[in-house]
Each structure stands twice: as C-alpha cells, then as structure tokens.
C-alpha cells in the first residue's frame, strides 16, 4: 500500500507558482529522491508533506489517512513524521540524549522507556558514549547522525530529508550517504530526500522525481531516468550529454527508430508509439564512439578536460555547430583542441513528445 499519496497539489507564493498540480505516490518503505534546481519547488513540496505549508488545491494522504485537502489540514505536530533538516535543527540547550528523546517525552513515554529507546538509537548510529554531549561539541557528521537518531527513536514511518548533506564537506558526503542508506535498512521507513545534487539522488534512491518550475517532470528509477528521460528538461538536468534536433524517419515495433542526425541516419531507442517527424534526441557520452573517416560525421573538438585515466572531449558536429556533444575517451587517445574527429552514434534516445 502507498505510504504517501500526493494528488494535484498546488501552492502559490504571490505570483509565483511554487507547486503546480503535483502528484506523487510513494510505496511503503520506498526511498524517493526529489531532484531539481533551486527554486523548483522541491522544498515547498517537502514542507507541504510536513504540514508547514498548506496547499491551495489537492490532497496529501499518509496511507489511508488524509492529512491535507481543501477542508482539512493536520498540524505538523500531529503528523508523526520525522524530518532531518539541512541545519540538523539540534536544540543547543539540550544534550544529545535529550535531543533524541524529545519526541518521546512529548508523547509522554515513561522515563525508563525513553532512556532505552535513546540508547538504542545512539547505538544504531554509532554514537554510544556521546549521550551527554551538547550539539556544539559535535562535528558536522556527528550532528547529522544525532538528527537521524532522533527520527529513529520516534519510529517515524515517513522521514523527510531536506538537503541533509549540503552543509558537509565534500569528503564526508559519501560516508553520510552510506549512513542514510543504513538508516533506511534499520528503520524500514519511507524516505523522501530533497536535493539539488543529482549524484546523491541517483546514487541512493529507489526512484527519483525530477522537478522544475513547480512541476514534477518525471518519476522513475535512476537508470530509467538516465536512459529514457521523458522530456528535454529532464534530459538536460540529469546526467551529462547533449540534446540534438533530428527527424525520425522510420519506426520499428521493437521500440527503435531511425533518426536523421548530423547528415546521416542512425538507429536509436524510442518510446513505443513514436511517430515520424521532428524530434529531440538525447545523446549520452557513452552513446558516441570515435570512428575512421567516412564511417561517421565530422566534428570539431572545442574542449578537452583531463580527468585522469580518461578525458572528456567536447566537440561540435560540422553539420550542427550549435550543439556540443561530449564523450569520454582514453586520455592517451585524446586529440587537441581545434582538430576534427569522426564520430558515430552507437546508441541514443528519442525524447517523447
């Protein structure tokens, strides 16, 4: 059964539509990342789920229970969901143990039970022995673990994470991402993770919802999002690569099409029911290969970015100089700027619509 159902939610701030007819269904125990550039409405969506913002239209339900619709709005304090804030929101006047135990004390749990739950949560995040510390005495990573322990102790079925890694050093992020995954295993909670960093979103989530301009553009597992973006916005925002204009000349029943691109015809993947005509084609770096003259199309190398063993080559096709393709090559074979290379399309994806 769905843990969280959002249906047709809309929210405006003045003239700006922060959320515009947003719908999303999240299964019990699922880990969904909400990905988008700043100002796309992802934080507003999180605050609507938490109850800090009341949607103007649409509804939000936890399981069977409606928490927001036109007539009703359950206050945040009555929603029983956990939240990890960007700043972690640890109360500076309480110890680590008091921070973690706070939701339990609010629910009038007996002191002994609070102590037991707090100890268990501290052990789970590897902070046993830190119970009497103050938040100010902890490192950034430890603070995040306390915030996670607080959600763990309150046994929240839904946990919202608002850019939890944004305040951490780069080298800490990978480790903390792993801890969030471990937290998920332990709590079995449904996780909604808001971020603008696609590496975080694609790396840990079961599904990723890409938002832009207050709308959800696509919700799909990371691989599907990467291989089959549903529109140009998703294609440009998620993953490297380029979007080029071409024409579908022929379609096949097996989900492939022939497209005319850069002066030649290529066979690429496409959605079932794709019709012939002008289209956009998503070309990832691994969809391109360097070939001998006469077997591909000519392109002029505009930039070479050395990245250790491999280099990223950016090149513009002679037939379409406005488009910048990128491909990854062995650094030994990288050519110089201004040289002409010949490229072939070994794969690609016709963006639907």
């Amino acid at each position, binding site marked *: 059964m769905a843990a969280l159902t959002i249906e047709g939610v809309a929210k405006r701030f003045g003239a700006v539509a922060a959320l515009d007819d947003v719908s999303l269904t999240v299964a019990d125990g699922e880990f969904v990342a909400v990905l988008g550039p700043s100002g796309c409405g992802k934080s507003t969506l999180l605050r609507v789920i938490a109850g800090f*913002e009341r949607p103007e239209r649409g509804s939000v339900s936890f399981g069977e229970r409606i928490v927001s619709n036109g007539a009703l*709005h359950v*206050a945040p*304090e009555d929603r029983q969901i956990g939240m990890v804030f960007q*700043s972690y929101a640890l*109360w500076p006047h309480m110890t680590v143990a008091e921070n973690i135990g706070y*939701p339990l004390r609010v629910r009038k749990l007996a002191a002994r039970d609070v102590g037991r739950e707090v100890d268990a949560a501290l052990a789970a995040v590897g902070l046993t022995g830190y119970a009497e510390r103050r938040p100010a005495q902890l490192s950034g990573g430890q603070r995040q673990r306390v915030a996670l322990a607080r959600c763990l102790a309150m046994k929240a079925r839904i946990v919202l994470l608002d850019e939890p890694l944004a305040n951490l050093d780069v080298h800490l992020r990978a480790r903390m991402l792993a801890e969030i995954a471990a937290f998920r295993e332990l709590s079995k909670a449904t996780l909604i993770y808001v971020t603008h960093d696609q590496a975080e979103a694609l790396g840990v989530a079961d599904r990723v919802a890409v938002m832009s301009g207050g709308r959800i553009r696509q919700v799909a597992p990371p691989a599907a999002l990467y291989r089959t973006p549903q529109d140009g916005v998703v294609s440009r925002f998620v993953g490297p690569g380029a979007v080029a204009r071409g024409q579908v000349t022929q379609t096949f029943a097996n989900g492939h099409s022939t497209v005319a691109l850069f002066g030649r015809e290529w066979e690429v993947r496409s959605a079932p029911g794709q019709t012939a005509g002008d289209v956009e084609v998503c070309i990832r770096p691994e969809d391109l290969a360097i070939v001998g003259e006469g077997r591909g199309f000519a392109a002029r190398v505009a930039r070479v970015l050395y990245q250790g063993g491999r280099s990223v080559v950016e090149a513009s096709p002679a037939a379409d100089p406005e488009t910048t393709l990128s491909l990854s090559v062995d650094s030994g074979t990288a050519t110089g700027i201004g040289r002409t290379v010949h490229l072939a399309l070994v794969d690609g994806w016709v963006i639907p619509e």
Partner: protein
Amino acid sequence: MSGALALPWTGARRGERVAFVLLLALVGLLALVPIARLAQEAIAPHGVFDPAVFAGVLESPTVWRAARNTIVVAIGGTALSLALGTSFALLVTLTDIRAKKALVFSFMMPLMIAPQVTALAWINLLGPNSTLLRAVGLAPAPGSPHPLYGAAGIALLLGIEQAPVVFLAVRAGLRALPRDLVEAAQASGARPWRIVGTIVLPLAMPSVAAGAMLAFVGCIGNFGIPAFLGIPAGFTVLVTLIYQRLAGFGTGVLSEVAALSLLLALIALGGLLLNGWLGRRKDVRVAALATAAPAWSLGRARPIAEGVCWFALFFVLALPFAALAATALVPAIGVALGPKTATLANFHFVLFDYAATRRAFLNSASLAAGAAVVLVMLSVPLGYSLAGRPPGVRQVVGFVAELPYALPGVVLAIAMILCLLRPLPIVGFSLYSTIWIILVAYLSRFLLLALRPVTNALRQIDPSLDEAARMSGARFARRVATVIMPMIAPSAVAGGMLVFMMAFNELTVSALLWSAGSETVGVVLFSLEQAGDAVSAAAVAVIAVLVTLALMLIANAFASRTARGVLPWQP
C-alpha cells in the same frame, strides 16, 4: 528563506490561534485603547465631535508659550545630543580607541539613570548650596538664582540624557555600512577625515536623522528635567503645564489636559512617523553585506581623544554624582563635608525612619518587579506567535506596542486616568487612586522594552529548531516552554531587567497617577526636593543610582548569552 521563525497561519492549531488573538487583544487594551480614549476626550468630550475644548486650549497664550518653550528646549537638547552622540559613535566604531567597553558603559549611564536624579545631581553640583563647590570656595553666592534653572540648563541636561539615544542609532547605522565602500574610498587615496565626510556620514545620514528624531521625541516627553529645573524658575513646558493643571485643579480639568496631551502627542507622533520613514529608507542599505567597520589608527592623537572622552565623562557623570553623594552625606545643607561631618543618617532616615520614602522604595520595587515579571511572561508567547505572522501584522503590532513607550509619559498617564477613573465593568470598582493604576500604566509603557529583546532573540534562532519540535509532536505551549524559552531566556530576562530598571526609576507616569500610600521613588524624590529637604532627596537619589548601577552590572554578567543588541550599553 527569511530568518524568521515559520509559524504559518495555516499550520497553526486552533488553540494557538485563540492564544494569539487573546494576546493581541491584551496589547490593544494596554496600548491602543487608552490613547484612542485620550484622543476622543480631547476632540469629542461627550461622544460627539466638539472641537471647542481643543480650540480653546490652542487659543490660550499660556499654552502657546509652553509649546514654544517645549520646542525650543527640545531643539537645543537634540542639537547637543546629536553632536555628542554622533561624534562618540564615530570614535567608538571607526577608531582604535582603547577601553571601548568602559567608555560605552559610562556613556550610556545618563540614559539609564532617571532624568530627575540627573537633574538633582546637577542642581547639587552647581547651585549656591553645592556641598562640593563650597568645599573649594567656588559656589555661587547664597540667594543667587541657580545657573541651571531655565531653558539653557534644561536643554543642556536633555542633550546629555538623549546623547546615548543618538549614539545607539548612529552606531547601528555605522555597523551596517558596507566595508567595501570604505575600502574603495581608501583605494582611491582618500584620507580618513575625507572618507568620514564624503562616504561614512552621507551613508549613515538616515541613521543620524533617525537618532535625532528619537532624541527630539525624548526631549519633548521628558518630565524630570523641566520639573526640577523649570518649575522653580517659572519656566513651563507642555509636560509640566499638564502636570501643574492636573495637580492644581484635579480631574475636573480632564478634558482640557486631554486636549493638551493630544497636542503634545501630535508633536511627538510627527517625530515618530518621520523616524519610521527614515528607518525604512535605512533598511535598503542594511540589506548589503554586514561588516566589521574599519578600525582606523588614531596614532598620536589617541591619548588626546581618550583624554577628551574621559574628561567629558568625568564632568557630566562623575562630578554631578559626586556632588549628589556629598549632599547625601552631610547632616544638613550648609554643613561642609568632612571626615567629622560625614554621616549615613540620611540613608537611614529615608530607608527606615521616614514612612513615605520607606513605602516608596517598597512600592517602586514591587511595581517594577510586577511589571517585569508580567511583561516577560507576556512577551515570550506574544513574540513567538508574532514571529511567524506576515510582516504587515508584525509591523502593526510593533508600532502599537511602541506607542505608549515613545509617546510622552504624561500623555499615557492622562490616557490611563481617562480609562480607569470610572469603575471597571464587571468588578465594579475603580483602579484610580490605587497603586494598580500605576501597574497597568507601567505594563503599557514598558511592554516594548520586554518585547524587543524577545523578538530580537527569536530572529536569531534557526527556524528549523522550532520546526523540528513540531515534527516531534510538541504543541504551542510545550514548544514555548521547552524549546523557545530556554533558547531566548537570557534575552528575555535582560528585557525584564530593563523593565525593572526603568520602572523603578520612573517619575513621569507616577507623578500624575500616585495617591497617598502609592508613592513611587520618583514621586518622593520630587516631593522632597520641592519641600526643600535636599539632603534626604540626595540620599534617595543616590540609592536609586546604586540600584540602577547594580542592575546594569548584574545584566552584564550574562550579556554574552543574550542576543546582540539587547543590552543597549553592550559594545
């Protein structure tokens, strides 16, 4: 994201909305209703519009003379406070002058000490009866008029008292000055003096002007100084005119004094609105990067600047209060102070033997403590539930809470009499001529002093700390008690101490509201001075100064934990 706590209307539960409406109603009752009642009494005394009383007041030559005097001394006081406050602010914020903490603390003292105490100290310093001047043979001849009586003396003391107000405003403006603008001028080759003249002062001008307006309003409403230095010389300002009319003719002339108060309130309100307008213009600049102001080296001029500062403080602060203490220590006026004559008898007399002063200390301490406790308890939930409201709501409530503090105290006192003279509905008795009317008036007058530190502190709290408590299931009252209160407690308590300090030393409001048995420290000080008991008056004043000083030092002890800007004398 704004820095304010998020408590949207929609997310709030019904209980806290009810609480908010009740708190707003209380603020309205304390601050808005009395002033509206005053305006009504002045222009529509019997419920119908009747400008006759107001027009009659405006026709009286006495009123015109008092109004002219008011504006003359206010302009003089403002000019002096502007010169003192601005130059001190420039010196403290922009240079490497030493002992800034002690300098600022001392400079703020005249604002924290009650004006009537300051006036009494100066009277004791420079008058023919000056114990101090007699000791060195410099006292004016006996029987000669006191040199401070009249317009010039009043303007001098008003200027000294209001200089800290200008200082605070200008310092805030200088601190908000984007540092790169100054550095760009330095890179252009400009010398410090030129930068101050062409960059710093023009950019800080809205703050300077706002400080001047506040000082002007403060000068207009001051009672203690013109009462001590004007009344004996027959020099009347509007505030003392209202006092004399009401003291002389009783509540029968209420309509007339209400009209006078309205006139005074309108002059003050003009200044306040101008100040608000200037403040909004200033905000545009504050939006730029907050900065540490440059600390220009004064070089060889530093000892000179420090010497001038400390000498000025010695003259306006140490000398008058030494004179006051000297008078308090002699058995009677005219007795020279020496090891043989010095006595603590006056202190013993006012603290233990004389019923009126003993009662006054108790009354003032109880009133001040009561007002501080009630206002802190009111301000925390009010400030918290205000924090999440739309800016418009916050501004309106802020303005309403500011009215009784910024308007002259006599205006508030007359308004309170008008509201509380008749028996209260339901309970059926009148608070007038009891001590309770003073408490109500204090709650109204000092609400702002308690509320401002709370809103300051709340603004500096990460809103997610409150949201995390909501996600934990904590409701309004619980969040206030377990999350908000502990974090803002130092600031809230500091606000309470400010209330106590101001209420303990208060004279303007209680001078019009006191009755036998409910005298305050300010009132007995005034009565003793008018009755010519200079030594007892000095003893009362010295005790008041010591209490103020002690409270300032106690508040300092936890200053590091209060939000920035809560204690005005903190650097």
